[in-house]
């Protein structure tokens, strides 16, 4: 009860129960807490794909030979193409792109089939919508593959020929985007929940005046911090676990790592987010400030975490900054645990930064709560 860490188990238990109840007793707030994240997991895991499927293309075929017909047929049969718009003039072709009816248009010159049959390179012009740079690049990749393949088929007239390289995608042979998105989303959505729950906890009590009530009781700063940490930790961990399980059982993503290890990392990750949330909460004097603070932390965290785009693409100093983002480390661990079966050493390598962040932020939150008394 005394000494460096004055903690009373009774007081602590009472406060933890209070925190849990204030979040979970009201059925509406229970629903707000559980419903949207799971809904988002479902919607976004289908919506967020950088892969290209079902894109509309335009074709302007000025040649009537066999090569051009085979090529067009191969494009139409491919599984990434949606509708194929047939154009009859260069203007129409241009309009298809301008008005965004097609992401790319292929123009086949009159000499195409002749060139192909005489062994010269038959060149088709592909115009891609640069406004959709990423999807455009992927589309070009697919079209090139179709072109090469059609050429080979024509040349060998049915006898197969080996590609110059064998490509193997490890861990996710068919590059199913969902396998990447779902584990990542579990991290992102837990981030938002853990941050919001904790960021509002002190700010709300301050607005309602119950924080004064708490401060006049014999409870200590350490107890307040612990009691605000534990419920958010439990809620964040449970939801995170549910989403990870949804990834395994609902989305059927192979899980090759160690579940207990991942669970431990999840707890540590949520703890570091809770620390950040409490820090926001202890410096905010109103709920509005806490909400804006959460927003200002969560959005850059997600953007710089490597979820939308790889961390390696960022400028070096942002890469250093990204080290301070718990989500960045957790994403590596959770994605590693799913398809890669990441070994212990590699997991630990990404674990310690989260531990450092948790210790720093939780202590800072404690200091802020104490100094607010001044």
């Amino acid at each position: 009860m005394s000494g460096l860490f004055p903690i009373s188990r009774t007081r602590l238990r009472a406060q933890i129960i209070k925190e849990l109840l204030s979040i979970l007793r009201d059925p509406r707030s229970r629903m707000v807490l559980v419903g949207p994240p799971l809904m988002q997991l479902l919607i976004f895991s289908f919506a967020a794909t950088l892969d290209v499927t079902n894109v509309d293309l335009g074709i302007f075929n000025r040649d009537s030979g066999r090569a051009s017909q085979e090529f067009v047929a191969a494009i139409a049969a491919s599984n990434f193409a949606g509708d194929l718009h047939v154009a009859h003039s260069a203007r129409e072709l241009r309009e298809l792109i301008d008005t965004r009816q097609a992401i790319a248009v292929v123009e086949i010159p009159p000499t195409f089939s002749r060139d192909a049959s005489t062994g010269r390179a038959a060149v088709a012009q592909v115009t891609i919508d640069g406004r959709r740079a990423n999807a455009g690049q992927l589309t070009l990749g697919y079209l090139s593959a179709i072109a090469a393949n059609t050429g080979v088929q024509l040349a060998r007239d049915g006898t197969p020929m080996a590609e110059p390289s064998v490509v193997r995608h490890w861990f996710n042979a068919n590059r199913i985007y969902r396998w990447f998105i779902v584990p990542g989303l579990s991290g992102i959505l837990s981030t938002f929940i853990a941050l919001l729950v904790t960021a509002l906890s002190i700010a709300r009590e301050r607005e309602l005046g119950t924080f004064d009530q708490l401060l006049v009781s014999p409870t200590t700063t350490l107890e307040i911090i612990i009691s605000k940490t534990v419920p958010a930790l439990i809620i964040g961990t449970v939801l995170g676990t549910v989403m990870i399980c949804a990834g395994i059982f609902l989305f059927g993503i192979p899980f090759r790592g160690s579940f207990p290890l991942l669970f431990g990392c999840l707890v540590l990750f949520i703890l570091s987010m809770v620390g950040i949330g409490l820090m926001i909460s202890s410096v905010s004097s109103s709920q509005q400030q806490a909400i804006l603070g959460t927003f200002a932390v969560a959005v850059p965290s997600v953007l710089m975490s490597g979820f939308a785009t790889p961390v390696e693409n960022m400028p070096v100093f942002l890469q250093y900054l990204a080290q301070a983002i718990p989500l960045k480390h957790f994403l590596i661990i959770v994605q590693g645990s799913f398809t890669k079966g990441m070994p212990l050493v590699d997991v630990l390598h990404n674990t310690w930064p989260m531990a450092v962040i948790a210790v720093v932020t939780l202590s800072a939150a404690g200091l802020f709560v104490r100094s607010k008394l001044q």
Partner: protein
Amino acid sequence: MDANSSAGPRREDGAAVIVDGVVKAFGDLRALRGIDAQIRPGRLTGLVGPDGAGKTTLMRIMAGLMTPTEGRVSLCGLDVSSEGEAVHAITGYMPQRFGLYEDLTVLQNMSLYAELRGMNRRQHSDTFERLLDFTRLQPFTGRLAGKLSGGMKQKLGLACALMATPRVLLLDEPGVGVDPVSRQDLWRMVKALTDDGMAVVWSTAYLDEAERCEHVLLLNEGKLEFDGPPAALTGRLHDRSFRIDEVGDERRAVLARALDLESVCDGVIQGAAVRVVLRENADREPLEQLAAEVGGSLDAVPPRFEDAFVDLLGGGPGGTSELAERMQAVELDSEIAVSCRHLTKRFGDFAATDDVSFEVRRGEIFGLLGPNGAGKSTTFKMLCGLLTPSDGEAHVAGHNLRSATSQAKRQLGYMAQKFSLYGLLSVGQNLEFSAGVYGLEGRIKRERIDEMIEIFQLGPYLKASPDSLPLGFKQRLAMACALMHRPPVLFLDEPTSGVDPITRREFWTHINGLVRRGVTVMVTTHFMDEAEYCDRVALMYQSRLIALDTPDALKQKAVTAERPEPTMEDAFIHLVEAEDGDNEETATDADPAADQMREHAESKDVPATAKRDARAQEIAHRRFDLRRLAALVRKESLQLVRDPSSILIAFALPVMLLFLFAYAVSLDIRQVRLGVVLESDGAAAHSLAAAFSGTRYFEVTPAHDRREVAGQLISGKLAGYVVIPQDFETRAARHGSEPLVQIITDGSQPNTASFVANYANGVLGNWLASHAAALPPAPRITLKPRFWFNPEIDTRRALLPGAVAIVMTIIGTLLTALVVAREWERGTMEAIMSTPASVPEILIGKLLPYFLLGLAATIGTALLVILAFGVPIRGSWLALLAMSSAFLVPALGQGLLISSMARNQFIAAQLALLSGFLPAFLLSGFIYEIDSMPLPIRGLTHLVAARYFIDSLRTVFLAGDVWPMFLANMAAMLAIGSVFFFFAMRKTRKTLDT
């Protein structure tokens, strides 16, 4: 009078307001159950009743803000529900929180309300001068309303309500939280107004205020209990009010015994005396006996309104506190329970508490009084450990609050004005929490909780939320929570503010009982009746202690010839004014400002008044008035400029987001870490390996064994590797009958994996082409790619224009949602709605500044995108602005709808995030290709306005003006926007009614 006439205001001498059989139901709850009453001009009518009696509901109905479920109200001959606009033109309404914009100055607040009431500029200056004089706010015109003291805010609220000299003035609880000095000022002003012929309604839960009204409507549980002059009610109590004088130390025991008598219906402590009210036709014998026994004298005193009120409600509670009975006598080591020496608290240069010293003895009730802002809250907070003193020290029960905080805190119980209960927890859970947080456990905890439940009869409510409890039970629960750990010292911070007399009496019965058990009580209050219960009262003024004595001694100081028996309130005002050194102002009845007001009123001839009324009517009948709109827009812009958080959201956040989108979010793969496993020693193999190192796409890690690199693929250090096999040379010689190299990628990052495979194959293809010897037969078909609009395939160019849409969503939806929700929270929406301004005006006035801010932010972000990040703009600025304007319609509409649904900032923020920001980010095609989404989600994206905006933005920036596409997109955005606005209008119109 013909109540059915609707041909404009009528000028009879009859009632100003006629309330006819009004019933108001909220769901099952009937707030008003058939009220009939009349309010006459030239008279101050008090609308009196305990909390939850239906006062505010009736006020809102009279102000035309709510429609009655049954019955009707006519105001100066106008029906309030059907002729709302006309009613608003001749009514002044001050809602409970005064309806002021705290971030506007005094003068700006006044201008706003003046223009909303259709006053012209020339009229302004006259009226302003008159009102500023009248309210004595002249020196503070440039000050922000939020920086005014409670009393000054209230005067400003009154000045705003008085703009354009209304014929009926409705004041909803103007006295709450205001100190006696300010309250006296208010009385003076209202008196001047009624003398001028205005009908004034003053709602209050304080019965001493009711007594000063000329006419009283007494409400209880939605029913009208009494309608008449207060004297008519007090008259019924003739010869039933008595005072037992000179009982001093015994007064608490005497009160308890008196209240336990059958014949006594009510009793309170007044300084050293006890005031008692007998039941109707009761025998005074037992009371005389009691007085004789305790050696006090029994004198008849004139009845008060409060006596009559308590009598009407069937009398107060008994005198025995079961709580105190159960509680053991408190043992405290020291005779001094609370003490402070040279206590000082400085905030910057300002000392909120300046060198305050006093001691509170064990078993004493010690009151801390003072005007608003005098420093009593600061002092109080230091004494219970909520603030650390800058200087001096404070002890509770012998423990120094600075060094032994925890020990000291265990000795004190605390109960605040707002009761500080956890609304999200049930009653039982609140009790459990309080017991636990004070370290009670096991059997003792169980016993104490059960005891509290029994004493306070909380049994039936255990599962309910404290917010749903009747006020009396809420107070009991708060007491139970504060007393669970049996503290020897109890701190009460305005414990009965806004509480009805019966509940208040029950509260003091318990407190008196506790004090007799040796508990020490510290109390702050604005309520002078509460001060009478104190043994000693400390009066603070301008951060210092100016008086400390017993209530009777303080009252004695205020005795004058014309005031032989001053009340506590008189004493308070006297002492504060003596300190100020200028007594002349309020001591004399002649009030220059009030006189001026009266003169002003008299000087106006009747036709002028009629003309003014007619004009106000005319303006009010206009559903849309540009001047009112301009006033609202000006107000909103001033607030916008003044609030740093809006500026932060509008300008700092976009810069941060653009920066992140420019640098952190890049889909361009450069410098991907690729392993190249060179197993062959041949020259060709070496040249291929060199080809991989030579490209800017890869950062190559060379290796000779694939096991080396496989581990790095797992740990994420490499995104893939290429194996150049041992027999590479021989395979190359065989001209393509078998593959030359193996490319392994990290498929857990599918996007990167695709790029690695594509680019590695590209490098290989190029190498093959340039090494003809190794060349297999040339593939016959090649593609010549050309990227329109973005030849360098810079994804940043595609992302940044889209970022403008994200920024606009934040400003439009999130900011609007928060700002409008704040207006509801602060009660200013109500004040605006009681003016003649119509709902479309209010909404447009609110949104226009945000619309302009949105456009400004668009231009700002667009310039940043063009100048700082080098994205070209190939279309016209006209198109850009047209598209942005079209997008702001749904964005603002959505924010408005959210705020009218949520009306609380937290839920508003949540909804804005869920329905605004995330869809704009994920479902708009900003990063993720809409075409690649499954059909149901693709359908969903059509409802996201950002989708159309982002589409258009990219075209304007990268392609140019494609008007057919723009027009289609604009139509879609406007359609979505109109749906939002339609629902927002509907929701706002009926918001107060639900």
